Structures are given as C-alpha cells and as structure tokens.
C-alpha cells in the first residue's frame, strides 16, 4: 500500500507539475479542460437559438441545426444533451487522457525508468489509473458545472430539483461507465508503446459502436452501453439488463489485468 501511495504521489507530482499546478506549461491538461468547458457552452448556445428562432435564421448552419432538431429549450432536454455529451466527449476525451498518461512513457522513453524500482510495477500502473480516474472525474465535473452555468445563463425553463437530481445521477453513472472503459485504452497504449495504438483503438471502438448500434446489438458492446444508459436510444435504455453492465465491467477488468500483465510479463525495450 505504501508503494502504491508513493507511486501515486510521484504520478501525481508529474501530473501536477506537468498539467496541473504549472498549467501554463501543460498543453494536454489545458486542452482537455477547454474542450470540456466548450462543449456545454455550444450546447447552451443551441438551446438559446432554439429559444430565439428569429436569431437562428440569421446564424446560418448552427441556427438551421437548432431549428431542424426542433429543440425544446428547457432543462430536461438540456440535461439529456449533457448526459449524451459526457459519453460522446468522454469516450474520446478520457481515451486521449489515458493514451497520454500511459503512452507518453513510451513516447518520451521514460518507461524504462519505471521498470526497476523498489516498488512493484503494478503500483506504477495502478497509480497511473488513479491519476487517470481523478483527471476524468475532474473533467466530468467541469462539463457538468460549466453546463449548469451555461444553462442558467441562457435561462432555460423547466428546472425542478427532481429533474436536476435525476439527471445528475444519470450523468454521474454515465461518466462512471465511460471512465471504466479507459482500462483497455491503457492496455493498447502499453502494448503499442505510444499514443498511436490507443488513439486508433478509441476511434475503432467508436466506429464499431455505430455499426453494432445499427444491427441492434448495442447493449452487448461495451462502448455503446454508456450511450444507451444516457438515453441515446430513448426507451432502449430501459432495456439495459444486468448482462450489459457485466460486459462493461468485465471489459474494464480485462483492460486493467491486461495492462498489469503487459507491464509485468512483456519484454520491455
């Protein structure tokens, strides 16, 4: 436990130094935060346009989109968007965060410094996962908070505490399900020794999720499950059974075990 804490501290230092406290020196941390702030701002802008159709007509494509979607400019609709955003942006964003945290050790050739330490290699891997989870939770909170602020700024109607608490709980679980899918990305970063393989894997997983969705097997594909939970398929989310959660959980465990095994058993060059 002491080893894990020491490794977590060191990982935390790297992250804090590189991406957190000295944020001006960190591009990745800043970029992810900006992306997670920008998305709800854009969504609230859509809501604002939906509220003001005359303005939408003057704004071209964005206005046309808001009109075509025939959006209800209220909190329940907006919360629905936020919940889908955490999946769509989360799968990509959390995937990038994981790719960066694990892949950089290979791209910067610093992985070799982590292999012969007085701490087990598993503690280094677990520390990285802890940092990734903290980072992703932080990004989720940023998305939620900036979404709430942006929704308040455009003065959406239909706010009730019941709607808010129900939607936030869906948001939290959706974010958690999405974060659980970071472990296979870490495996591909470790296996592929860099960024390319995990980023390619994230893109492939998103592509397949579209395909299996079209075939009607979305609830059996891990990368589609958070989207279904968030209500992307409307009533189908209600059909998410225990099997879906087990599939997603097993995928996460496999990713974790695979990453640990890769660091422990694979030849490290």
């Amino acid at each position, binding site marked *: 436990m002491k080893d894990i804490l020491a490794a977590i501290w060191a990982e935390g*230092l790297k992250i804090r130094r590189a991406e957190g406290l000295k944020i001006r020196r960190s591009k990745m941390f800043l970029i992810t935060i900006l992306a997670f702030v920008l998305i709800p701002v854009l969504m609230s802008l859509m809501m604002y346009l939906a509220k003001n159709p005359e303005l939408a007509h003057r704004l071209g494509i964005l206005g046309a989109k808001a009109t075509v979607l025939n959006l209800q400019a209220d909190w329940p609709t907006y919360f629905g968007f936020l919940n889908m955003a955490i999946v769509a942006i989360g799968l990509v964003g959390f995937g990038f965060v994981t790719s960066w945290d694990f892949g950089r050790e290979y791209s910067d050739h610093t992985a070799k410094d982590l*292999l*012969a*330490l007085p701490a087990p290699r598993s503690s280094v891997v677990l520390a990285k996962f802890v940092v990734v989870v903290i980072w992703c939770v932080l990004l989720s909170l940023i998305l939620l908070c900036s979404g709430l602020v942006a929704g308040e700024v455009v003065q959406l109607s239909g706010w009730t505490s019941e709607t808010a608490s129900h939607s936030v709980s869906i948001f939290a679980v959706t974010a958690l399900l999405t974060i659980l899918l970071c472990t296979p990305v870490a495996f591909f970063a470790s296996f592929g020794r860099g960024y390319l393989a995990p980023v390619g894997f994230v893109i492939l997983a998103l592509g397949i999720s579209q395909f299996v969705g079209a075939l009607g097997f979305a609830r059996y594909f891990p990368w589609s499950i958070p989207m279904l939970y968030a209500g992307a398929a409307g009533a189908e989310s209600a059909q998410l059974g225990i099997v879906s959660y087990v599939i997603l959980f097993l995928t996460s465990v496999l990713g974790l075990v695979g990453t640990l095994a890769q660091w422990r058993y694979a*030849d490290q060059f």
Partner: protein
Amino acid sequence: METVQDVIRTEGLTKHFGSVHAVESVSLRVRKGEIYGFLGLNGAGKTTTIRMLLGMIRATAGSAFLFGKKVSADSCDLWEHVGYLVETPSSYPELTVWENLEIMRRLHRIPDEKSVDMVVDKLWLTPYRNRKAGLLSLGNMQRLGLAKALLHNPDILILDEPANGLDPAGIVEIRELLRDLSSNHGVTVFISSHILGEISRLATRIGIIHEGRLVQEIDADELGRLHQKRLLVDAHDRRSAQAELIKDGYSVTATEEGVLEIADNEAVACPDRVATMLVGAGLPPTLLRVEEEDLESYFLRVVGATGR
C-alpha cells in the same frame, strides 16, 4: 562457483528474438568494487544483456543474479541497491532537471529531501537545475540520466554507453567520478561501451561480446601481456636489410608503407641486438621502434578471430 564477492553473475544468459540470437549463453562474474567494461560492436548484444540484468526482458535461457539473488521483474528489493542508465537517457521534457530528479527520489522512496540537490551538484548540473529537460543538450541529458542512476547511492551501477554525447571534459569528469565510486565507496560498475579507449582507461576487467557471445574476459592488467608487439625497422637499403635480417633467422614482413616488421619475441625484447647486427652489416637502421597493439586493434583481432 559463486563467491561472496560476485555481485553480478550471469549463467548461460540467452535471449532469442525469433530467429535472431541476440545473446547466446553469456556467463560472467563481476566482483564487488570492480569496474567491468562490457565491450562490443553495435548490435553485439550489450544492451540486451543489460536489460536482462535489470529484469526488463526475460531470458530465453539462463539466469542473471545480483547479490546472489535471481533477477526477475519482481525483484523490487534489488533495485534499491542498483542504479542504471539504459541506452539514451530520457526525461520528462516539460519538467525541469530538479523536478525530474524529485520524481525519481519519490519513486525510490529516498527520505532525504536534499539528495536531489546533492546529486545535481555531484553531476555538475547546478546551472541547469531549473531548466526544462527538453531544452538540455545531449551531454547534460546524459548527466541527468547519470544523476538518476546515482540518486539513491546504489551499490551497483549498470551503465549502458554512459559517455555518449559527453564532451571530452565531461568524459573525464564522469570517469573520475566512477573511479572514485569504485575505489573509495566499493560501488561495482558494469559499463558497456563501444568506445574502446574509454573502457581501457576505466575498467579493471573487460568482457568482449561479439554476435551475442562473450568471446573473452580479461583483467585490465593482463591487457599488456595479451597485446601483440612488433619491431618496426627501416633502413636506406630496405631490400638488403630485409635479406640480412632473414639470414639472421628473423621472420620479416613489410608493412603497407614498406617498413620492415618483425614479430619475433626475441627481436621485440632486444631491439638493440637487431640494431647492432644491421650496423655490423653496413645497413644502419633509420627507424627502430617497438609498437604495441592498442585495445582497438586487439578487440578487432579478437572479434575477427571468433566472428562467425
């Protein structure tokens, strides 16, 4: 037979990558306080051997031992006493020299917070303490890599080409540092290099690896004995001088420049006799010099003789 003094030992250490035999049955021993120079051409198997010594790659056959304990990926207790530098030194480019070392201090669980400043000072990195690692020159990056290896005052140092990128002054500084660690602090140094001159100046024992095989192990003291010596002779009338020498029983060859070369031990030991004989024959020598083979020539002769 392992002795207490053998802090590094390999037994039949072998690594195959498919059909490539990177390391083939390497057995070596390094005693406490020794500086073991691991010499080989590029691709000879030096780095693969070092990675197996550090548990980074698994041996196809054989084993490596440090302090008598078998090395594996789980040998955490060993790494507290081992500092290493494998291939090109790397650091987190956006972090400063100090921050990179502070991360290593934490990972090595070194309680003394001053250890980072001490090693920065020891490796002459003080002027670069707050410079981002990504902005360091190759030589200073190498110093940073060495600082990481030395941070926890290890008993064994395993260094892969540590002189790479260092300027001549830097090479001398590092050489003196390693000598001091070995002589005064009992640190065992395993250093790989293809820079023969550097190894010959530093190592107390040398192992030559070629095409994955350890082809020779020699004490540095023995080197002089193993080096071939030859007597170079020249005279105004080379042809007559050669004939006279052959008549006197010497086996004489000519170098590319046409200078006469005698490898006979007797001639090498007593060049004055050769000079006297030539003067007596009316062919006074214009050149009489005993030349000793350098490590480079010796190395090339050894790997050439055993190369497959």
